[in-house]
């Protein structure tokens, strides 16, 4: 099978299981809304300068919700030794990484779209005029999370406390992506868009390229037993 066919087959398998169970999407979405609710009580949004803190709150919500989804990526593969089956199938192991990464990316993006919509209503942030830039930044930031998170969740699944290990391994590595995404979103939401916007978008692109290439090279070692 062609490499891209292998990737899309794995992606399609994940979409199908997700469509039938809706586990990852519901949990990410509910958790994201809960985080927004927590922020509301923790910060009293009336007094909150949303222009200053809004992008930060938004991305903290995204990353916490996303981590829930990523924790599940390889847990589901472990049940019934599905991962073993995938590894024995005549596929390039890089395709397993890319397929899982893309399915993570897709589910996170769907959850984030809804969270973003709720966020703009709850905190009264008008994102519609800047929807183009916000979408680009959300995509690039989430791509960074998904690419680093997928390989780290494949690592943490092999430890004794996988749910705890993923945040400990993932958050320090994801830090530049969070910073870039928050700064880019903040710049995109000011009127007119801040000068830093282009810089941080480029930064995110570079981060994404690095953290897709490295896992592609290293993923074989993670699967090997």
């Amino acid at each position: 099978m062609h490499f891209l066919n292998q990737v899309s087959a794995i992606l399609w398998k994940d979409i199908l299981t997700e469509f039938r169970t809706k586990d990852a999407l519901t949990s990410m979405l509910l958790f994201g809304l809960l985080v927004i609710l927590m922020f509301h009580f923790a910060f009293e949004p009336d007094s909150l300068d949303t222009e200053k803190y809004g992008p930060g709150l938004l991305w903290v919500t995204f990353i916490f919700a996303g981590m829930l989804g990523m924790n599940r990526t390889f847990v589901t593969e472990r049940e019934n030794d599905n991962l073993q089956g995938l590894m024995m199938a005549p596929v390039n192991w890089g395709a397993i990484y890319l397929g899982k990464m893309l399915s993570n990316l897709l589910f996170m993006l769907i959850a984030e779209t809804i969270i973003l919509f709720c966020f703009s209503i709850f905190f009264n942030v008008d994102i519609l005029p800047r929807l183009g830039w916000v979408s680009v930044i959300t995509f690039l930031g989430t791509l960074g999370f998904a690419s680093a998170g997928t390989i780290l969740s494949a690592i943490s699944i092999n430890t004794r406390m996988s749910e705890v290990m993923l945040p400990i391994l993932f958050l320090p590595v994801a830090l530049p992506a969070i910073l870039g995404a928050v700064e880019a979103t903040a710049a995109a939401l000011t009127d007119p868009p801040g000068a830093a916007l282009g810089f941080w978008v480029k930064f995110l692109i570079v981060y994404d390229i690095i953290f897709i290439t490295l896992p592609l090279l290293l993923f074989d070692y993670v699967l090997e037993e």
Partner: protein
Amino acid sequence: MKAHNVHAFLTFILMLAAIYAVFVYAPTELTMGEVQRIFYFHVSSAWISFLAIFLVFLFSLLSLLKSSRHWDIRSASAAEIGAVFCTLVLITGPIWAKPVWGIWWTWDARLTSFFVLWLIYMGYLMLRRLVESAEQRAKLSAVFAILGAVDVPIVYMANRWWRTQHPQPVIAGGEKSGLDPEMRIALFISLAAFTLLFFYLWRLRCNLEELNDSGEAMQRRLQS
């Protein structure tokens, strides 16, 4: 064992020289006073933290490419000692910062990246404890070490760009344009002493792990 003893002796002598140079030979800093003397050990520990993470990165690559226990032991040992020195940086830094800057901590690029570096060391060590099989432990921790080591310079640069775009009060300390020649000598002695100490501890740690391995192998042979 001979080379080992020479190494230990040299480290001891150089450590004594460093203590003398830092506390007696180097002049007292004009504005900061005596507290500035922590600078020599602070910078030396920071250098060791960087050296160690670089070695962890290198040995992890080698351990993946050659899939050998030899490089895995070297990488894990460097990480353990690097974590100790990185902790020292994070302890000596605030002790120096409080009287000089008036605050214990600031989110400056260097401080932030050391914090992240420390978290990566801790993640690496924790990961090693939590993986059961030895072969898998070597591979998984090596992959994480490579990702983590690549991440640290990105965090540093991101913070620098971030701060330059949001001008902040200028933070003193760190780079002093033109170090007093006597201070520079004290710093170099201290750097050399710490480097020797690091490699000494590292050798001990590697030996210990190898002894442990052969002990386990012997036990298995006795049981079978």
